[in-house]
């Protein structure tokens, strides 16, 4: 064989193999060797009867780190075996260069999105009203063992909201998916700083029912007095952290049926004013808008407000720490949020029944327990077994603080979309205005006088 010809043939084969390898189905990824503690909880739902032939289902959820990718991959492998007739492919969403939601929306628009995917709770209305996700109420009604009550009521209010009838609930005729997990805020405590300042232990105060705004301010001031670079309190600059102060004062972002702005009510303004005082009058907080997490990790913040998702990162700090629930405000509650996201089904899926089977399998107590064991979230299923297992995922020792935050008597406000308006637009108006108040650029009175004039425009008239 002529040498040149040989090289030409080899080169052509190489190029062809590049292209043709791209056609080959993705190689199965091996599950990680590390064992994740399994939760002894019953599978609460029946999986839909498997079809005769294997169907390929792609699913995606947003992982926070490689550890979560490994667990989701392992779960996908297990469910692949468990769900007869279904071949699963798990795709971790989002990359360094592509935001999870942007990538997903682009794929949805292009018709290449996975069959099942996760979206944040605030996005459900946008996806549902545009017909991008499947209403699975009929499938759910035909599924033995499925009960909406098995999940927290807050997320299910939105997931069963029927925009045509404005009704919500198990018989509303709508079901947009099932919640993947829930989360809530707590205060991560630097116990060394609190002890050094001689401040009372917030956990003890909480047990005694004395964990109020006044007690919180007292601890913050005492720890702030330790030095100019030590702060009593730190929170990130987004709607979650500042919203709890409004909620705890009896106010909130919207009125009860979420059809108009309530940021200018006396209660909301009182909550905002208290938070403003933490930054401006008492000077106990890390500057608003600066990321408080590195400061907390450096051991310079006594109370760091964040969700359960911050736990894996905090576990690596080298000081004594624990968590406590948020302090109770004038309304008698801490005004906490119930954060959640949901597994939903692509409206263009060719296999709705199989996709629904997967959504159920992904939200069983056992699956949620495997994810929660990593420490970043709380099971969305109201199951005593799941919650008992959650308490064992330490540190922090006081995991109960998170459960107290989402307990029914704490009356948490469920994060959710605006069915009568646009949540991103509302947030766009609210966030900079609140930031203006907390950084001292605007007064609370000026905020209250104008905010709802602009914010109310985002609601459908």
């Amino acid at each position, binding site marked *: 064989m002529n040498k040149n010809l040989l090289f030409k043939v080899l080169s052509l084969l190489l190029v062809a193999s590049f292209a043709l390898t791209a*056609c080959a189905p993705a190689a199965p990824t091996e599950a990680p060797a590390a064992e994740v503690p399994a939760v002894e909880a019953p599978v609460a739902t029946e999986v839909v009867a498997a079809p005769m032939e294997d169907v390929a289902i792609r699913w995606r959820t947003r992982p926070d780190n490689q550890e979560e990718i490994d667990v989701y991959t392992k779960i996908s492998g297990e469910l692949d075996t468990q769900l007869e007739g279904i071949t699963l492919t798990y795709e971790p969403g989002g990359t360094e260069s592509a935001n999870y939601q942007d990538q997903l929306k682009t794929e949805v628009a292009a018709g290449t999105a996975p069959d099942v995917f996760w979206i944040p709770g605030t996005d459900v209305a946008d996806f549902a009203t545009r017909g991008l996700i499947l209403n699975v109420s009929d499938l759910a009604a035909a599924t033995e063992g499925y009960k909406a009550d098995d999940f927290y009521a807050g997320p299910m209010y939105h997931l069963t909201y029927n925009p045509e009838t404005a009704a919500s609930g198990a018989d509303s005729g709508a079901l947009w998916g099932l919640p993947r997990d829930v989360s809530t805020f707590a205060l991560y405590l630097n116990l060394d700083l609190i002890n050094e300042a001689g401040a009372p232990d917030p956990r003890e105060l909480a047990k005694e029912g004395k964990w109020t705004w006044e007690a919180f301010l007292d601890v913050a001031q005492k720890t702030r007095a330790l030095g100019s670079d030590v702060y009593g309190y730190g929170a990130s600059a987004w709607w979650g952290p500042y919203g709890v102060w409004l909620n705890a004062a009896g106010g909130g972002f919207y009125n009860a049926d979420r059809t108009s702005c309530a940021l200018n009510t006396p209660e909301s303004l009182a909550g905002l004013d208290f938070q403003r005082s933490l930054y401006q009058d008492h000077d106990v907080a890390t500057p608003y808008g600066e990321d408080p997490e590195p400061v907390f990790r450096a051991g310079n913040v006594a109370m760091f407000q964040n969700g359960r998702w911050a736990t894996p990162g905090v576990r690596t700090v080298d000081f004594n720490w624990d968590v406590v629930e948020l302090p109770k405000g004038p309304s008698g509650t801490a005004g906490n949020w119930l954060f959640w996201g949901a597994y939903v089904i692509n409206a263009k899926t060719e296999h709705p029944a199989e996709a629904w089977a997967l959504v159920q399998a992904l939200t069983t107590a056992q699956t949620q327990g495997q994810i929660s064991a990593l420490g970043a979230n709380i099971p969305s299923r109201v199951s005593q077994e799941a919650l008992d297992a959650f308490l064992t995922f330490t540190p922090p020792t006081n995991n109960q603080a998170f459960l107290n935050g989402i307990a029914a008597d704490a009356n948490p406000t469920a994060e959710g979309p605006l069915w009568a308006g646009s949540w991103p637009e509302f947030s766009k108006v609210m966030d900079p205005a609140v930031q203006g108040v907390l950084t001292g650029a605007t007064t609370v009175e000026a905020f209250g006088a104008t905010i709802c004039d602009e914010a109310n425009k985002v609601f459908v008239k």
Partner: protein
Amino acid sequence: MVINPRTEFLLKISMVWRGIFSLLTFGVVIALWSGILTSELALWLKILLTVILITASIFSAIGAGQIYRREHSGRMISLVIDYLAFVACSIIALNTGEVFIGIDALGETFASGLPYLGIVAMGYFLGVIDEYYTQKKQLWGESSLKVVSRWVMLGGFVLFIFQVGAIDGILYFLNKLTQPLGILSVAGIALFGFFMWAIGRSESAVAMHSKTNHEQILSGWLFLSPNLLGFLIFFAGPLVLSLYFSFTDSDAFSTPNWVGFANYAKILNIQLVSLAYPEQLAKEVVNISVYDEVGRFTFGNSGILFAAADKYFWIALRNTLSFVFLAVPLSVFPALVLSNILNSKLPGMKFYRALYFMPSIAAIVGISLVWQWLYNATIGYINYFITLGIEFWNNLFNLAIIDPKIQWVSDEKTALLAVVLIAAWQTMGFNTVLFLAGLQNIPGELYEAATVDGAGNWDKFWNITLPMLAPTTFFVVSTTTIQAMQVFEQVFILMNPPEGPNNSTITLVLYLYRNGFQNFKQGYASAIAWVLFIVIFGLTLVQFQQQRKSSIYES
């Protein structure tokens, strides 16, 4: 001229094919609009396809006539149409075979085959030994090592193909091609490929009276075609499409509705109203169901209120222009000075040239994250060094300078400046290299003559360097301005939220991104993009006009 029967036959069927193709494309257009083919296509897609198909139909018919008359332009038309259709069919076939979405599979499996490619490399190495050690021929006989080399290479390659799953890939690809669209596209490839060959043959060229320069033109377009097609499909196409979307209410998911100039009208709907007193509320002077306050200019006991239907656009425009006016001088003037220093013959200059260029090639996400840490008001290094400096001066001279503890990214007064500093730092290195190239093009004789005339360093810089650098300066300022007008990444990564405190860092590109991807307003975002284009175009035009006044540039 005598044309052989085979060529005569091929030209005849090419002519018939052109006629059939013309009728076929026309038929597809009718089917498209009558709903026989599909009723789900968006209006814009229907119009686009119609324009393409009708054009192809008309040209194909013309081509048929010209082939009949043996005019070379008929051959050109035929080749262009068949080539474009061939490429289109190839893309459809590859897409039907899911080649384009199999990249992940390629990444996962290809790496596993690399060891076998090592065997191929080893075989090649044996072949090299065979060529360089001729003595072995006497020992082992003629080309024995060469044979071994070939078999090792082939064996390694076969193993590689199996390992990476190319066989599965072939089967999967072929299986996918059995769909109607796959079969149709493969038939198209064969058909268009055949007629390209039929009319592209040199005998056909002679019969069609093609000359050498016609062949050269064809070759030129053929070489240009990959780039040209890429430009049309991935740049010009989306550009035109975004113009169309800017006149619709597109949300990227549902069929867009034509809204005319409504998006542009909203962007440009502003009001300037006199205020009775400086603190007068906006709702007392404008219809707040339409307008929001953007800002107010106060003087004495009165003022003017600036209100807009979309206040964020105007805030974004203000921030973007502020960014340009700060970032462009900060990345051009230091670059000019630096390039003059680096242009000297001092030792180690090459090292410094590389050093200053490094920020330009570093990943913007990484850079922004590093700066985020540096800017941190409580534990950041910038404030740490400011504190150290103040303490030093206070102790040395017994002063009482107060540490400002600047909140770089969380104070609306400094947030944009923080972004400007990063952008200037990053762009400066690239601009320095451009200025260096310009400096090295200035003839040395000019400086020698100036030296003879007794000019000092400043005179030389002012009277020779600067004027001679004018074209480079124009290029640097224009490109830096265009780049600055499109600022996005630094803001998006550095600021949290990206809009910054009190919207102090919201920029036009960030705002259009928010509208397009988060607020489901692709139509409105497209309109913003076109307004941004007009602003950039206007600024560049002004720069061009200013530059034309320079006699140096004109000469």
